[in-house]
């Protein structure tokens, strides 16, 4: 059986203006994608992303509203600085480039989320499974000099 990437989608609940898109994300998402709906992209703590990566995610997609289009005025601007730096930190510590991706949805664009997910899945397929920060795989080094 061919390998399918495990993806996590962190979605700001206001970023999909079209109810068809929201309905698709909530009910018809492929089984290998896990949806976590948050109040705003500013609500996404770097710990959420780290927990997703540690629990075996091959890729993490964060979707939020465009700057200046945030429902809460400025939530996405604060999260932009933090999450961008956090993704860079994980890359510095050895996570492959491109495993964490941000998609900013414009309210006018319908059907963008499907395209983004398909594109992201394709990219992750090329990178392959994520084994580094995955805690589901055992290590013998914990707690002592090996």
């Amino acid at each position, binding site marked *: 059986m061919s390998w399918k990437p495990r993806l996590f989608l962190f979605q700001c609940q206001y970023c999909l203006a079209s109810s068809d898109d929201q309905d698709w994300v909530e009910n018809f998402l492929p089984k290998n994608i896990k949806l976590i709906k948050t109040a705003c992209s500013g609500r996404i703590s770097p710990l959420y992303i780290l*927990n997703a990566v540690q629990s075996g995610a091959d890729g993490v997609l964060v979707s939020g509203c465009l700057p200046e289009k945030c429902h809460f005025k400025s939530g996405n601007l604060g999260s932009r600085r933090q999450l961008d*730096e956090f993704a860079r*930190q*994980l*890359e510095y*510590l050895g996570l492959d480039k491109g495993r964490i991706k941000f998609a900013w949805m414009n309210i006018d664009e319908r059907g963008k989320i499907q395209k983004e997910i398909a594109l992201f899945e394709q990219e992750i397929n090329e990178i392959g499974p994520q084994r580094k920060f995955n805690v589901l795989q055992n290590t013998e080094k914990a707690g002592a000099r090996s």
Partner: protein
Amino acid sequence: MTDINEIKKEAARILKEKVVSQVVGFKDGSLPMRAQPAFFSSVTEIKQLTLNGFCVNNQAALLKQFKPDEKIGVICRGCESRAIRALVIEHQLNRENLYLIGVPCEGILDWRTISRAVPYDITAAREESDRLIIQHSDGEAVLQRSEYLHRACLQCKHPNPVGADIVIGELIDEAVIPYVDELAGRTADERYEFFSEEAERCIRCYACREACPMCYCEECFVDHITPRWCESMVSKGGTHAWHIIRAFHQTGRCVSCGACERACPMEIKMEYITDKLNEDMRLDYGFEVGEDETAQPPFATFQLDDKKRFIN
């Protein structure tokens, strides 16, 4: 090297004139090459005051335990003064209630390296300008002081105190030291190997957190029980999460004093992550800790014209 008697004189003066009610400084510890933080509240105690390369703590971490309206005198070196400035910006300390005695710092010594270099039981150690005189069970050894500086102090950019009320001793020339990436030239796999080798030795004692002046949260994310944000065990997931998120919370706030590394019983390297994050902040937002008296840390603020990386 600053004359210790000058510092003692100034500390005694502010206690006598009731400028402050206590002075935070160091006194000799019970073991050689160790000094311990001490609180002096009377002039007679001041004779115990000391300041040398074995004073490893960052005193700014101790200031939050005082009452907010109590007047405190602090003997602070470069990193301590920058930490105090950052804490004042974050509304954790009240600058008006602090009297800062600034002392230009010549670097903190790494007592672990010294005890490894001298293969005998060390009974006493003292500094004489650039030499280090170690008395041990088999005689005496003379070491070059500059070779035994702590890693963080070798890369120290600002040894001179900032914003002190009085500076005792001659200021040191602040040479421009470029940022050195410890993991430069390694592939992602090698970087991960290095990081996990370091992080997985962690025994989760949180000495780094207690030693850090910028870790002042009343409840740390690792102590939070409902919901449990990360594993609290000594496991791969738990130690990784602690080291990643601890460093991330220091982004643009870490003063690079190295107190966390000196406090660590497992000798885990930690500063390479915070140094990298601080360098990113400097390149992206032009922010450096302790440089400005009012500038907010980069994650406490935002601008519309930040980098456009997210938008595709």
